């Protein structure tokens, strides 16, 4: 009964019968990839905030002082960029916007205020909020990389003018603030939707979680025969 795989189903996705039903959501590789991005980002936040404002300069001590902080921050950025783009090439197709996504976004504020999720259109593997975060990060990390290279004086000082560096250092910190805001929402939603975090820690979610939050995806897996005995 195999049909063509829907655009958002990933190779490792699989439903396991039981009580409760469980659904494999993220492979070990994806999880390692994701947590590499998380760790590099946490270190980027610490080192970046140390340079963002004098009141946070004490954070530089966690890296052994301002010089080390200044030296390590760009390299962490490179790691984050590579880690994110590892996820990007895996998930970009699944993060294309689909029919019904607009309605979901319109209904989301009511859900966040405590409304009923049944009133929102069913969504696939990723909900439109996740997709926005995904594409937002994809764009912001390119801006962060480009602006970061321009202000990475150790290697790239001669290639741009001082005025270009002034603009890029402002762009770099402004987009960093936006990215931090995006991550705050991302983490906040993971905490709010109980049962979500285990998708990235243990790799699977319960059937009820998939039914409640990503029903279209669950249906795709079931009708696609991705169910074991």
């Amino acid at each position, binding site marked *: 009964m195999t049909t063509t795989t829907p655009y958002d189903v990933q190779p490792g996705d699989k439903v396991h019968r039981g009580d409760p*039903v469980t659904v494999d959501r993220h492979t070990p590789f994806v999880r390692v990839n994701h947590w590499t991005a998380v760790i590099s980002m946490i270190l980027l936040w610490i080192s970046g905030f140390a340079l*963002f404002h004098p009141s946070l300069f004490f954070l530089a001590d966690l890296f052994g002082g301002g010089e080390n902080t200044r030296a390590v921050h760009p390299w962490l950025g490179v790691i984050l960029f590579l880690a994110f783009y590892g996820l990007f090439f895996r998930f970009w197709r699944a993060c294309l916007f689909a029919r019904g996504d607009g309605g979901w976004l319109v209904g989301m504020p009511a859900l966040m205020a405590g409304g009923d999720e049944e009133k929102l259109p069913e969504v696939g593997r990723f909900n439109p909020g996740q997709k926005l975060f995904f594409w937002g990060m994809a764009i912001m990390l390119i801006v962060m990389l480009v602006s970061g290279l321009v202000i990475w004086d150790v290697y790239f000082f001669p290639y741009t003018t001082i005025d270009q560096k002034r603009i890029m250092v402002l762009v770099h910190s402004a987009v960093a603030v936006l990215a931090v805001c995006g991550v705050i929402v991302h983490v906040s939603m993971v905490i709010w939707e109980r049962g979500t975090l285990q998708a990235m820690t243990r790799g699977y979610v319960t059937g009820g979680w998939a039914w409640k939050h990503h029903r279209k995806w669950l249906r795709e897996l079931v009708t696609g025969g991705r169910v074991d005995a």
Partner: protein
Amino acid sequence: MFPPLPNVSVEPGPPKLSNADLVKRSASSVPPPERQLTPVAKLIDVSKCIGCKACQSACIEWNDTHPEIGVFSGSYENPPDLTPEMFTLMRFTEWVNPEGNLEWLIRKDGCMHCEDPGCLKACPAPGAIVQYSNGIVDFVHENCIGCGYCVRGCPFNIPRISRTEDKPKAYKCTLCSDRVAVGQGPACAKACPTQAIVFGTKEEMTKHAEGRIADLKSRGYANAGLYDPPGVKGTHVMYVLHHADKPEIYANLPKDPKISPIVEIWKGMFKYAGFVAIGGLAAFSFLQQVVSGANRVSREDEESAKRLTGHAER
């Protein structure tokens, strides 16, 4: 002529400049100093400069720097630019004046010691850049993290980051703060054979400049004037220019230097906007969860999932 700097006593005495005299300290604050030192200034009279580079040699000697042996690059300028080892540089310009005559303009470039220092404003490292109450702006290398933000902050393109050391650091003219601390003047002023570089209080220097400007005007330089740009609230290194209306002809000396508005935004309101955005969103996310409670998967959801997966089996 302004009298040459006297040789001072070598008897030890209390320092005339210390951390108690700081009025500004990068990325941190200092208590208001108990005494106010007399503002000092170095006056560079471009019209008296003969381009001998004694000032460059004296600077290298006093600061014990070791500039690379350079190559001829088609100009008298040597090295071709300021470096972490060359804090001051004679910049030579061949300017054709409106009458069609060639004027050889020589400007001693280096830190201007701005009253409103852009380097200090941009610096993220506490105490890496300081300003004394006599106006000297100094880099404190043990606090410098080598980020190059001072390069972005400076309206005169002066600081240079050393890449030859293990750890990059920013370097520039100190106005010989170590010499001033013991009652001497800068090494360049001491070495200048024509008194084109003189050093004293800012008041004395301004007054001396007036005499020089009057002299230049009497000799046909109608636009002679003092370069003490108000955009950075004045500088503690000033020029007497024979063409003060066109400072840019002196190897691009900026006409109206001020800290770049981008730097002002970046180091000013933007920081607060960033904190408000991040803090506000974090507070909102927290309140959202407290008010509307966790979004939990219910027993019925699990049952529905079971029915869905079971149904597919048949």
